[in-house]
């Protein structure tokens, strides 16, 4: 069977986090009762005019800088014309030949390998409304809340060659935009969507094969499945000597297949031209520098810092930087208690367990990083034992008490004085006389039983080493 190399490029649409829409003052966030977040401007009533929200430009530039782009100093707004019932003006205000950002790059990890995916361009545009199909009346209803919500479209170069790379790229782009604070990138809410372009070529081919576009993928899972399906479909066709036709396809989530939407011949002629209602955007070097200064340290830099300076292992470092909230939380915690590995370990193993199980939202941790650092420190310094530290974390997730208050209230504090331990050891040895006798007669296994009884009664308040020491002394005395 012939060997084909997939050539994959992505167009990612990310919703920007501005308070208001791109051309009017309606609220831009997700949700709301149908047709309550729209006005004459975003629904294109005759005579209304769009006024560009400069915050959209600033956020797009910020996102572009996070993705390593150059920023055009002069950027033009254009109209993309097509008829659709969810597009009330019958044109989308977008950008054609002079986008805000060009020539970016992001690094992705594929196993141990690192790969760079180039970004061709990023432009700003308005979102369209949404059609809701009403099966009762057999009608389509339009919801215009989403009309005019600001988007950036991030167009990659065709630098990916597998579903895994496409997924890693989307995750990385989403992560960087979240770090920049310009998009929530929640695929389930539609704030991140992707179109995928795929073609196949033989290793020796110098030209790209005919590409197929798959529109509107709205989960990482469907991106992976659609890419895998499409590679398989095109491979089969080529093996059978069939010709791939340039077309737009859609992915059917239920059946896991792509189906044709329209061929190249039916492709829209969008008749792009300069939007006469919105004057071109001028951007100064100062604008760019002041936006750049607002950017936090990003994923790759934080990863390098954690591995090189904090000596974390790559796996833990990767987990920590995957979410800005967690990475920020970690940074703050180690600023209070600079035991890099212990704090990292407690986050990765304990705290993120709750996140992964869906019990905790990493954007909404109910205690401060300082309080968390205190807990890790208590565990490390054996003020409480490891199991009790976990129990304290669980309680902290429910309320506002500090680790120390919880430890005191629950009696988790280690007891340094030997009086209590001696008292318990005396109790145990006098209650379990037959076990003591057995031990003394040579059944050494019974030591563990007696040790367990003591630990249970001390409920984690004592250092096990100390219990062992005192119990051994006591048993030696009874010999």
């Amino acid at each position, binding site marked *: 069977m012939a060997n084909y190399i997939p050539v994959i490029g992505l167009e990612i649409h990310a919703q920007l986090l501005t308070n208001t829409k791109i051309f009017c003052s309606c609220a831009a966030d997700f949700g709301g009762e149908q047709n309550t977040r729209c006005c004459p401007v975003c629904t294109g009533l005759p*005579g209304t005019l769009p006024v*560009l929200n400069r915050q959209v430009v600033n956020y797009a530039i910020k996102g572009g800088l996070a993705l390593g782009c150059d920023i055009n100093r002069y950027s033009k707004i254009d109209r993309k014309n097509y*008829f659709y019932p969810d597009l009330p003006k019958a044109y989308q205000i977008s950008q054609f030949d002079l986008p805000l950002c060009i020539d970016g790059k992001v690094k992705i990890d594929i196993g141990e390998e690192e790969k760079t995916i180039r970004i061709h361009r990023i432009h700003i545009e308005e979102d369209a409304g949404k059609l809701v199909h009403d099966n009762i009346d057999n009608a389509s209803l339009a919801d215009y809340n989403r009309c005019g919500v600001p988007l950036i479209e991030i167009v990659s170069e065709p630098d990916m060659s597998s579903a895994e790379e496409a997924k890693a790229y989307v995750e990385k782009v989403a992560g960087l935009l979240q770090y920049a604070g310009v998009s929530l990138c929640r695929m389930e809410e539609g704030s991140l969507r992707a179109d995928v372009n795929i073609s196949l070529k033989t290793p020796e081919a110098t030209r790209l094969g005919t590409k197929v576009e798959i529109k509107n993928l709205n989960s990482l899972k469907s991106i992976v499945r659609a890419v895998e399906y499409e590679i398989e479909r095109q491979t089969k066709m080529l093996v059978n000597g069939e010709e791939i036709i340039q077309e737009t396809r859609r992915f059917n989530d239920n059946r896991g297949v792509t189906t044709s939407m329209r061929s190249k011949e039916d492709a829209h002629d969008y008749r792009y031209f300069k939007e*006469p209602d*919105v004057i071109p955007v001028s951007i100064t070097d100062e604008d760019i520098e002041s936006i750049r200064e607002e950017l936090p340290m990003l994923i790759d830099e934080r990863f390098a810092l954690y591995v090189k300076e904090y000596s974390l292992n790559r796996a833990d470092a990767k987990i920590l930087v995957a979410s800005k909230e967690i990475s920020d939380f970690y940074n703050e915690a180690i600023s209070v208690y600079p035991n890099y590995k212990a704090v990292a370990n407690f986050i990765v193993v304990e705290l993120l367990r709750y996140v992964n199980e869906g019990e905790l939202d990493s954007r909404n941790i109910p205690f401060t990083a300082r309080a968390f650092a205190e807990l890790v420190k208590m565990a490390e310094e054996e003020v409480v034992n490891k199991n009790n530290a976990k129990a304290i974390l669980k309680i902290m997730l429910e309320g506002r008490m500090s680790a120390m208050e919880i430890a005191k209230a629950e009696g988790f504090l280690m007891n340094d004085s030997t009086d209590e331990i001696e008292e318990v050891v005396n109790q145990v040895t006098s209650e379990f006389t037959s076990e003591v006798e057995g031990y003394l007669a040579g059944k050494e296994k019974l030591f563990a039983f007696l040790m367990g009884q003591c630990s249970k009664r001390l409920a984690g308040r004592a250092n096990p080493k100390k219990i062992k020491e005192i119990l051994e002394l006591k048993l030696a005395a009874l010999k």
Partner: protein
Amino acid sequence: MELCDKSILMLRQMLDQKEISSVELTTYYLDRIKEFDHQIESYITVCEEEALKRAALADQRIAKGESKSLTGIPISIKDNLCLEGVRTTCGSKMLENFIPPYHATAAQKLLAEDAVILGKVSMDEFAMGGSTQTSYYKKTKNPYDMTRVPGGSSGGSAASVAAKLAAASLGSDTGGSIRQPASFCGVTGMKPTYGAVSRYGLVAFASSFDQIGPLAHSAKDCASILNTIAGHDIHDGTSAKHKIDFEAKLGNPIKGLKLALPKEFFGDGIDSQVKEAVLKAAAEYEKMGAELIEVSMPSLKYAIAAYYLIASAEASSNLARYDGIKFGYCTPHAKTYEERITRTRKEGFGEEVKRRILLGTYALSSGYYDAYYKKALYIQDKIKAEYRSIFESCDAMITPTAPTPAYKIGEIEGDPVKMYLADICTVTVNIAGLPAISTTCGYDNDGMPIGMSVVGKAFDDAAVIQVADAFETNFKTQNPRL
């Protein structure tokens, strides 16, 4: 002098001195509309009740001594300017039942002074035309001769002012739509610098050329109205931050001004009586001490083509929203979305609008963009450069407003190319975004008014008004006989 012959400035005085109330003045105009508009057919909608209410408010304001320049003055507005709660048709079946929930900024500014809006006047459908005969509603007549067109597209505005059915009017000008009807109906009409008046609430035809402006009895009245309606508007991203005082140069001497006469505007296609009247007016300026300088605008021969390509391209996109989904006309005969949109547009738009949508769509289509739209933009740059170079040595330019006086209804409307060529004297001003005013400078042998245009540098609107006003001061106008 009859009440209706008085300028806004005179009416202002009468109102402020309580010689007449705004309610009386408004009633007077409403009565005239009832008496004469069935012949003229300028009003699509008369807002009698609203007008009288507003007049009463104006009277209270005047009584408190808080009147502004247009308080209590009865004005008509073109039916492509949105007025909250009042049907805004754009002269099209497509918007037969469209009632906007907002005011156009220009209308809002009139109302903020308690100017009285008498009603909405007719126009060519979506402002596409020069005769007002493409209106789906009132095919307005020229008050000087009912068998002739009033010009257009602001024909309703011009006729309502000429027939004294309003003290003044607001129109819109994309390629001459204020100036040409002003010239046909013997009134003064001004298109200010692009961006001077907010376009918010003006139903778009060609966004990069559209401007709102006044039609009135004099340049002074135009200046007064412009001072009210102009200014930066946060709802229009193309509105200029520039502050213009339109009355700033009124009365300044003409002596020493350099007035350009571009020879291409006095060439073959121009009616000899028009040429003669405009040159005679130019000679008047010379007498006042101005220097006349012959200049050339070689790109004028491409202006009509460039204008119709750019304006139609933008129109094809601006008018795409009329799809029968959210507002406006919707065909009753459709089962699918495709059918609904196709039939709605087929049934809702008139011939001329369809022609321009087709032309514009074609000009923007892939494969034709470079050959048409892009070349038109190149011509736009050339025309701008030619104006710039003329205004380096001249203060203003004098041209005819239209190649002919008002023609007979039915004479050329059937021939789109002839209709388009008739815009030759006005479109370059829109292409370059400059201020221009048309004022009456003579009458032809049939007694039809002839208009002269004064064009100025961008944002030097005050000079254009100064020059027109200087001529008007010494010129005796004739009234139409109704």
